[in-house]
């Protein structure tokens, strides 16, 4: 091995329902989709494992309901996984399963080391606070108390994502979808996190705003060397951004590899169908 992964995710499983003898002992292929017909447990993520390296963008594609967002929510501690391990290569945290840390420690990691951009800005922003206080909120959560400093960071980030400074005191509620998305990105970036989770960030944006957002993400990667996990069902977005890609189906990773290899030489039946569907 010539490099150490920044984040190691091993066998993350998230099930909704108790699970029964039948579905827990079955190997995955025997379930109908990701649903156990006996105990009605839904397996949103099944044994998902991958590594994330410093400065890389990892893409995750898959159809709706394949568990992409659930996985992101598990990694960002929004949802507690049923089982699984996550290691983070950081002094003081080595060899510690992040999922087993105390709620307080998880919160600290989430505020200081991770950034998340949700598909729906409602989840990532407080719509009735001003754009800049949304950023301030994250900074305060990470322990910042100096208002002048927080304001200057906030304004700098909003400039970076091309939100005019004269609108920084407005509520995101009054912003367009694309602007809300960019405020979310600014918020996620406020603590210079080494890891960013981006969930369908270009969905619903027009092409021109999408190009802006893609450009912004690529710049963040190049300038700050941030590692990112990008979830999208838009293969074009994944092709532009990600070096490596995971393909998910029914909660499982069915294929992983170099993005261009996934797109040009897909191995799995589902991946082939996905690629054939590309316009």
């Amino acid at each position, binding site marked *: 091995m010539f490099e150490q992964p920044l984040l190691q995710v091993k066998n993350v499983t998230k099930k909704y329902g108790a699970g029964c003898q039948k579905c827990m002992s079955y190997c995955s292929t025997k379930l109908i989709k990701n649903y156990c017909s006996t105990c009605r447990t839904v397996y949103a993520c099944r044994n998902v494992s991958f590594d994330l390296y410093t400065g890389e963008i990892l893409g995750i594609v898959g159809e709706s309901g394949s568990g992409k967002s659930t996985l992101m929510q598990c990694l960002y501690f929004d949802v507690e996984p049923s089982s699984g391990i996550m290691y983070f290569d950081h002094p003081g945290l080595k060899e510690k399963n992040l999922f087993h840390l105390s709620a307080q420690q998880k919160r600290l990691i989430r505020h200081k080391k991770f950034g998340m951009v949700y598909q729906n800005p409602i989840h990532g922003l407080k719509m009735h606070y001003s754009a800049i206080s949304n950023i301030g909120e994250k900074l305060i959560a990470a322990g910042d108390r100096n208002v002048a400093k927080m304001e200057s960071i906030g304004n700098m980030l909003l400039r970076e994502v091309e939100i005019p400074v004269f609108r920084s005191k407005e509520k995101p509620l009054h912003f367009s979808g694309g602007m809300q998305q960019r405020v979310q990105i600014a918020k996620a970036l406020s603590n210079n996190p080494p890891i960013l989770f981006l969930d369908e960030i270009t969905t619903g944006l027009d092409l021109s705003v999408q190009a802006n957002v*893609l450009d912004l993400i690529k710049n963040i990667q190049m300038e700050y060397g941030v590692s990112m996990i990008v979830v999208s069902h838009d293969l074009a977005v994944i092709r532009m951004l990600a070096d490596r890609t995971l393909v998910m189906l029914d909660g499982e990773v069915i294929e992983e*590899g*170099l993005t261009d*290899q996934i797109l*040009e030489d897909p191995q799995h039946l589902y991946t082939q169908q996905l690629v054939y569907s590309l316009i």
Partner: protein
Amino acid sequence: MAILQVKQLSKSFQIHHLQKKMQAVKNIHFSLHKGEFIGIVGKSGSGKSTILKSIYRTYLPEEGEILYESARFGCLDLAKATARQIIYLRKHEIGYVSQFLNVMPRITSRQLVENALLEVDYPIELAKDRAEETLRHFDLDEALWDAYPNTFSGGEKLRLNISIATVKKPRLLLLDEPTASLDAISKEKVRQIIEKLKRQGTTLVGIFHDLAFMEGLCDKVFEMEAQQTNTFVKDRV
């Protein structure tokens, strides 16, 4: 010392919805030394691109070995290297030029070439100079340097493509019909840059339709012969 040895390379494509396996190439065998230029010719569909794409790992090789002498990893089987190793090699050692340009939207030609250098930690000033030098060499109209390449003509896109791939002076350069849509003058330019790269020690594998172009440029020419599913590579020189 051979820098690239392809041994018994086979690749087929499993097409699930047809429940069919398509054999693309079988038992490909060749090797090349540092600074050599190997040309591959053959009919459409004979598997020329498959070989290049297997080396670049856009295709997952099925059987065989692709032994590459890397500056970073030593002797490495590209067929079995990890994705992260391939990503490193693509950034630092192996370049690939195709007829198609696939780039981020709304990035200017100049930025694209600069970014290729910034990716491997060139200082910004040097990157700027080198980018301009390369674009000038390939005669990309200066008016296009700060334009977005989506609307470029085929030839312009291709020249930009070659600029991006060659600006880093890769150790191994794979050329997938890089002269397909170029006029005679542009072809000559490509030829010049290939000769220059060769002199600097770059090893090249190229697919060309134009036999005249390869004349005197390639050290060896291989011809692909598609015989149903069997494809042989034979030395023409």
